[in-house]
């Protein structure tokens, strides 16, 4: 389980780097915003 440390009555916790540890980018699905001019030809 993810460890989240409370700081007293504060709504803040230790650095969110911890949150990133829990993240996985597993899926190939991508959504790409475009105005049709996002290519830069080599």
């Amino acid at each position, binding site marked *: *389980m*993810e460890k*989240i440390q*409370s*700081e007293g009555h*504060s*709504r*803040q*916790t*230790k*650095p*969110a*780097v*911890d*949150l*990133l*540890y*829990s*993240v*996985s*980018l*597993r*899926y*190939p*699905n*991508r*959504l*790409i*915003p*475009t*105005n*049709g001019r*996002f*290519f*830069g*030809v*080599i």
Partner: protein
Amino acid sequence: MTRPKFKESVYFTDHLGEIRFLVQVLNVGKGMTDELKFIFTHSASGVGGVYTESEGEWTHGDIIRLQPEISYHSDGSMHIKMPSHSERTETIYKNPMGAGSRRKHLADIFLWEPIIKYTILDYSLCKKPIRSTSIVIPNHSSIMDGTPFDCVLFLGNSSIPSPKERVDLGVFRLSGLTTNLDLLCCFYESDYKGEYRRIPNTTERVLFKGNIIQILIRHEDLNMYKVP
């Protein structure tokens, strides 16, 4: 049309003081049911979206739509929706976890649940007219400095503390998406500089330097879903 239970457009302030569109968040559920939508483009501002599953190339299977959206439903289903605005096309739904797969039910989310990663390279694509009631995130000078950055969206119970903001971490919390859920936006510097992608039916590659939206999941939940 019924008024959404929640509807907010969130903007960020870039290094030049320009206010740029980040995401529109809606809860379009009815009664006790919650249905969340996340929209990252604004077609009237000239920005649509391409859906792709391929790496290193554009394909004929890529789907172009005026205003794609990502939805997270009460039953745990999460879809990328490409709505049709033409008689020649149809609305297409993609479930990144695989057809029929479900994530946590919205009501079961407690700790911060990663859902979406939005990588922004091209700030100019973040366009939507702002209103006086819009939410504007102040500039984080070491992250929104004109270079690429990631915005990672988490859902979590309203009782869960937010992370502490740092030089290398921007934090913004949007409260009240549902009775119990808040949205956490965490901003990080990104080392993504774009990528080369091949054009269909050619050997020519082009340098793609646009923004990318991807679905996230917890490491510990990977075994719960089939990987397409």
